[in-house]
């Protein structure tokens, strides 16, 4: 019974923890502009994140090595240093976007300007990273994140033409008023939002924080294979809500209030409250994960003691680097830059950086020196290779598409 509860908890946490500000904004933007025409990208992204999250967790559990330690060992100090610069920069953008997302949600709930909420949000993120146990922070934000189901409920309340939605998803076409360039630009953005690199840093470091053994790997496989796809359904529900409500009215999404508009329309005040709790939990959880990831990547590259299993005083450089990251995030947001725009850019740059994280993981998952006889099986390697091609294509295409489309304008 206890084991069953553990499985249920793990799955629920994975569902609630799947969506972050990047998924929220990108799915909503895409739904409002392209309907369900890019749903296939979400599906590809989910299969990819399942494969690689599971792979990185397994590598960490078997070899005891987290992702960035492996990156440095395999690429050497120089190439790994360049990788660190790029990965850290993109992670910093994501931290900034998530903290901005918390602040925007609090603005929607309180009508006090988000600028006032930024230091509050960053302070609470730091406080949790500083004082709260790993398992608790993961579970609480994951479970509260389940409130995002409000998007799915709203979709049913809106009573859309399901055949029409399915038709858009199964026969994707570029709408008449959009160019194929913007269509592919948003395909890359959605892919980046689903497969953000920090999830891999967080997953593999978390496996070491929680001292995973082979039994935990089996549990994680269930969490990932059941939880992530269900979380991905939430992403699709967000896009579908936008497709049903915003697209016919020609509303393009440029703020969080437009993201939640369909839920407010369908579910009224209650729906709005529930969805705001969900967004708050999702962005707060992701802010924790990205802040920790910034500390993980730096500490693993430079060989500092890291992890929430230690007291802060036992991992001083790790904690100082996370405080510094949050302060930089606050400084960026304090310039008045639009957090939604930071989010949109961060998912595209995530797509650019994907190979930097995923290639070393795939290599080490096949290295018997690290993995013994637990190296990747043929199926996972086949899947990993297909995704290598997709990831490289998305990474190469991202910047040119961004230039051609003027960042999707």
């Amino acid at each position, binding site marked *: 019974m206890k084991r069953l509860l553990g499985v249920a908890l793990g799955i629920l946490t994975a569902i609630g923890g799947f969506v972050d500000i990047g998924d929220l904004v990108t799915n909503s933007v895409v739904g409002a502009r392209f309907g369900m025409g890019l749903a296939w990208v979400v599906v590809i992204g989910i299969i990819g994140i399942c494969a690689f999250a599971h792979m990185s967790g397994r590598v960490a559990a078997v070899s005891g090595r987290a992702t960035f330690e492996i990156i440095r060992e395999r690429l050497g100090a120089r190439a*790994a240093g360049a990788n660190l610069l790029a990965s850290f920069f993109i992670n910093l953008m994501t931290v900034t976007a998530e903290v901005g997302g918390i602040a925007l949600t609090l603005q929607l709930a309180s009508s006090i300007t988000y600028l006032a909420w930024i230091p509050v949000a960053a302070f609470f993120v730091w406080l949790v990273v500083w004082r709260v146990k790993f398992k608790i922070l993961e579970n609480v934000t994951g479970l509260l994140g389940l409130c995002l189901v409000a998007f799915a409920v709203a979709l049913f309340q809106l009573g859309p033409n399901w055949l029409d939605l399915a038709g858009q998803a199964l026969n994707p076409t570029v709408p008449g008023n959009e160019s194929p360039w913007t269509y592919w630009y948003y395909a890359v953005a959605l892919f980046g939002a689903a497969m953000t690199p920090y999830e891999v840093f967080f997953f593999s470091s978390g496996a070491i924080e929680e001292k995973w053994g082979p039994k935990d790997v089996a549990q994680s496989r269930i969490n990932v294979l059941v939880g992530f796809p269900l979380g991905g359904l939430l992403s699709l529900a967000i896009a579908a809500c936008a497709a049903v409500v915003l697209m016919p009215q020609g509303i393009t999404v440029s703020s969080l209030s437009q993201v939640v508009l369909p839920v407010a329309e369908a579910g009224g005040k209650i729906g709005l409250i529930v969805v705001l709790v969900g967004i708050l939990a999702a962005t707060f959880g992701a802010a924790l994960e990205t802040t920790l990831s910034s500390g993980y990547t730096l500490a693993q590259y430079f*060989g*500092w*003691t890291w992890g929430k299993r230690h*007291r*802060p005083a036992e991992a*001083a*450089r790790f904690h100082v680097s996370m405080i510094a990251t949050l302060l930089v995030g606050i400084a960026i947001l304090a310039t008045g830059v639009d957090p939604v725009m930071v989010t949109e850019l961060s998912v595209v740059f995530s797509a650019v950086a994907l190979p930097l994280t995923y290639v070393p993981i795939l290599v080490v998952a096949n290295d018997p020196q690290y993995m013994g006889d637990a190296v990747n099986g043929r199926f996972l390697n086949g899947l990993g290779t297909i995704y290598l091609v997709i990831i490289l294509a998305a990474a190469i295409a991202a910047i040119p598409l961004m230039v051609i489309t003027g960042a999707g304008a």
Partner: protein
Amino acid sequence: MNENGKAPAGKVLDAILHLLDRQIKDTEGLVVSVVDDLEISLPDDGRTLDADAEAPMLTNLLMGPTLATRLFGGQPPPERMMRIPWSDVARVGTVLELRNRAEGLPVRWVEHWLRDHVIARIPGGRHDPE
């Protein structure tokens, strides 16, 4: 392989593949550092070794400032190098395990400084997470 065509006794390690950039852990399993560079016993004047000269030995693992010079070239002054003697290494696996504890090793002075001057002064810094 040595000059007699026999494989040397014991484990063969590739310095770049198995030592450089590996994590170093102490007896408690605490991360000490990453191997940023290696020091080998070579004649100081930089002349090439002749055939009957003594084989160079791995003497120290280097940490800290040597990372910058390894990336960008040059050499830090010897007194600035942070060393762990090779004789302190107990085992080489996917990590290098030391024979002693990390506490007090000069490599960790930044860690200690930040702990004493920043982290320990913030409330809760010395407590376990709850």
